[in-house]
């Protein structure tokens, strides 16, 4: 069954390897106006710990393949004129882990939802007219300065279904049809306007029985609330960004939107999920501090009426004001491990409920209502590249650690080998650990550590 279903993909992979193996230039058509590129990729992950009861994903045992996803992505850019360009990105994928596990272990709805993908993820036109830049169509918009957690990067909802938050976010953001306008007031000051006029998409969660199903026994996949195409379900935001003096960048933004994560809601028809509107107001900064050769960056957001499920409330929803910030520092540093510099990056995140009632509204802590009103998280990242160890290859080890100060965390040591122009192979281990009382951002996944191999062949 799997063989038949995945046949088309592997044929394509072999064809690409054979035909596109030489170093070359861009694939172009129409006298160079249309440029195409893309990649083939396969990621295969294996569970490395025995499952605990009650956290979800229990049917995958230690040593079992829980992800075996193959992708083909194609990107095209058509240059109509120097000031007008059309861009599109399509991705197809197939997750063979369903076949490995046996289709009988999943509902038909989950298989149909998650096993295959065939989607135009972005399709937009860029227009430049003097200082005005317009991007119209299905797109991703990224604001903010943070890595690993999103404070300002809230415009596109995420797709957590197939590898939770462990992918590059550009690969799990859901494109939204939007109007994005950037007006360069001066070379140092931009005004930006973002409007998603009629569409709201909630975040997507893995289905029941899958490895990354939402934590909590029996909950399984969170039902996706469908919102109609209506101006009542749109979102709108604006940002002003400027550089003060020589190199101090600041921005202020306001984004009015539906909360992408669902909250339980008690209605006349029973329990439902809802995505009430939130107003997120915030700012960012970055600067290079020359005496210490370090980039400092930060980000803050003030959420007005951020919703959270609270079963002590009559309608199960608590809407509270929250504030969160991130401070980060990046410094390329020579370490005695390499003649190339190593990148060291650290961040601290803090979030607080400003009007705490009998609940919490956190980054994602699983604390019971009323247990706490503030959360602190730390992250660290170290990487370097070895360009001389292996002929024609670049070896890049890295380690990323995220730690919730309550006592849970996530660490990812990763080793990437880039061979030639086209081939990239990564070996990595995602290690999660949780608090003894089952608390903290990462605790719900504390038994879902995994090892994976990620092979990517890109062509252009």
């Amino acid at each position: 069954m799997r063989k038949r279903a995945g046949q088309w993909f592997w044929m394509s992979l072999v064809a690409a390897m054979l035909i596109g193996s030489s170093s070359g230039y861009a694939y172009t058509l129409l006298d160079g106006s249309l440029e195409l590129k893309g990649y083939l990729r396969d990621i295969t992950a294996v569970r490395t710990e025995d499952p605990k009861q009650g956290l979800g994903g229990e049917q995958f045992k230690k040593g079992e393949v829980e992800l075996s996803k193959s992708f083909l992505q194609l990107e095209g850019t058509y240059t109509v004129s120097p000031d007008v360009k059309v861009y599109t990105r399509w991705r197809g994928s197939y997750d063979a882990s369903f076949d490995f596990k046996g289709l009988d272990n999943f509902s038909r709805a989950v298989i149909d939802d998650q096993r295959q993908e065939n989607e135009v993820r972005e399709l937009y036109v860029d227009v430049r007219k003097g200082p005005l830049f317009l991007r119209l169509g299905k797109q991703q918009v990224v604001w903010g300065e943070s890595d690993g957690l999103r404070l300002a990067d809230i415009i596109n909802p995420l797709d957590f279904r197939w590898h939770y938050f462990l992918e590059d976010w550009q690969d799990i953001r859901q494109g939204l049809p939007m109007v994005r306008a950037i007006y360069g007031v001066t070379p140092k000051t931009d005004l930006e306007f973002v409007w998603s006029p009629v569409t709201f998409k909630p975040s997507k969660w893995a289905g029941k029985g899958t490895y990354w199903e939402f934590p909590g026994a029996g909950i399984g996949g969170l039902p996706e609330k469908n919102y109609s195409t209506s101006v009542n379900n749109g979102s709108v935001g604006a940002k002003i960004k400027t550089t003060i003096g020589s190199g101090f960048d600041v921005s202020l933004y306001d984004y009015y939107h539906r909360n992408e994560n669902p909250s339980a809601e008690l209605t006349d028809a029973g329990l439902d999920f809802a995505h009430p509107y939130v107003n997120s107001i915030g700012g960012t900064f970055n600067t290079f501090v020359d005496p210490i050769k370090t980039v400092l960056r930060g980000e803050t957001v003030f959420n007005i009426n951020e919703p959270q499920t609270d079963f002590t409330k009559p309608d199960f929803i608590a809407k509270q004001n929250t504030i969160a910030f991130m401070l980060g520092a990046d410094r390329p540093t020579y370490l005695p491990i390499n003649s190339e510099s190593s990148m060291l990056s650290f961040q601290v995140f803090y979030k607080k409920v400003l009007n705490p009632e009998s609940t919490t509204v956190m980054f994602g802590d699983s604390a019971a209502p009323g247990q706490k009103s503030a959360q602190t998280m730390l992250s660290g990242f170290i990487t370097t590249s070895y360009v001389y160890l292996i002929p024609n290859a670049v070896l890049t080890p890295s380690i990323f650690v995220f730690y919730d100060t309550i006592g849970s965390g996530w660490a990812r040591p990763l080793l990437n080998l880039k061979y030639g122009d086209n081939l990239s192979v990564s070996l990595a281990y995602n290690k999660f650990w949780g608090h003894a009382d089952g608390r903290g951002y990462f605790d719900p996944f504390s038994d879902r550590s995994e090892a994976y191999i990620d092979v990517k062949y890109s062509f252009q």
Partner: protein
Amino acid sequence: MKKYQQALFAIAVAAFLMMPRSPAYSAEDKSYLGGEVKYSITHANVEKYKDRLPLGLYTLIKDWGYKANVYDTVHDYEFPKVYVEATEKYKGTARVNKDGGLENYTAGLPFPDPKTGAEVMYNYEYKYSGDDFFWTTYDIEGISSTGKIKLIKGYYKRLAYQGRLTINPKPVIPNSEHVELKEISGILYPEDIAGLALLTVRYQNAKKGDDGWMYIPTIRRVRRISVAQRGDTFGGTDFTWDDYRGFSGKVSDYNWKLIGKKEMIVAYHPLTNNPKTIGKFLDPDKARYELKNVWIVEGINKDKDYVYGKRRVYVDADSWAVSANDLWDKRGSLWKYNETGLTVKKKDHVMFNYYQNMYDLIAKRCSLAYNAILKTNIGLTEEDFSTTKLQELTR
């Protein structure tokens, strides 16, 4: 997926992969083709010419089997009249301060009669290059010790804030931060780093480091970065960020020593901007060497952790462009040799790196930058070097 859909899909993929790739870009200027080889320097006779060769070139010929064909020396570079007039007008005003920075410079050649290594390097920095210039494309081939090849395709553009002579505003783009220049360096190939673009702002203040913003495709953001570590390799090639164009570091980051002015055999007037490689080096018959007067300067970076222990720079006395570099590691071993295939773009009065080679003499590998197309004075503005412009790249 149904069978006919699978078939259609496979056909579409195959058709896509078999599409013709864009051809190599052609050179703009081939006015210096031809000429007779006066003599060739090979392994057999290299000792005879040792004193006239950059140390790296001597090593290449002696140990790698390279050959240097020496042609008649041609002096065909002339500064534009407006630059000569500015040099005369502002002669004697510029000076190097105690921090190694340049002060009181307005336009033209800062030091027509240099007395120090720093003055030679500032003459290189402010040689005539137009008020802006744009390498619309270039390629870098990496040739490893096993002969495998990888390719990077990129572009580079630069805007001068000082010494402007052609495009308004002149001679300085007014700004309160005392900017010296802005540049954008971007990658077009391979796919996994295509779209990467770095905006750098360099200041006149010797003590103020460069500012950098990079658009990183995988995170789809313009990210503020530290560009302090300019000794890191450029995209995994043998070039560092400071090796661009022969030298692209900040002059004041080094302590310079003037070795002298001497006739040396250096690459000049190459026969093509698209040379082929033979084994691990450039096809010697596509290169051309001439006996030229060069200024020889040695520089040691003030950062003790800097990747090179020392660089010896050979600066062409006609044009003040860099012809070659010998580069030592921190243990004092000769590590790399950098050769720029300078040619003259007469119409624009600029020197043009037809190619640029970086040979790693220890690891026995090289990177060859070529296929460049150069445009100057095209009217680039501050808006072209803003983070707004980088944001347009965001996908």
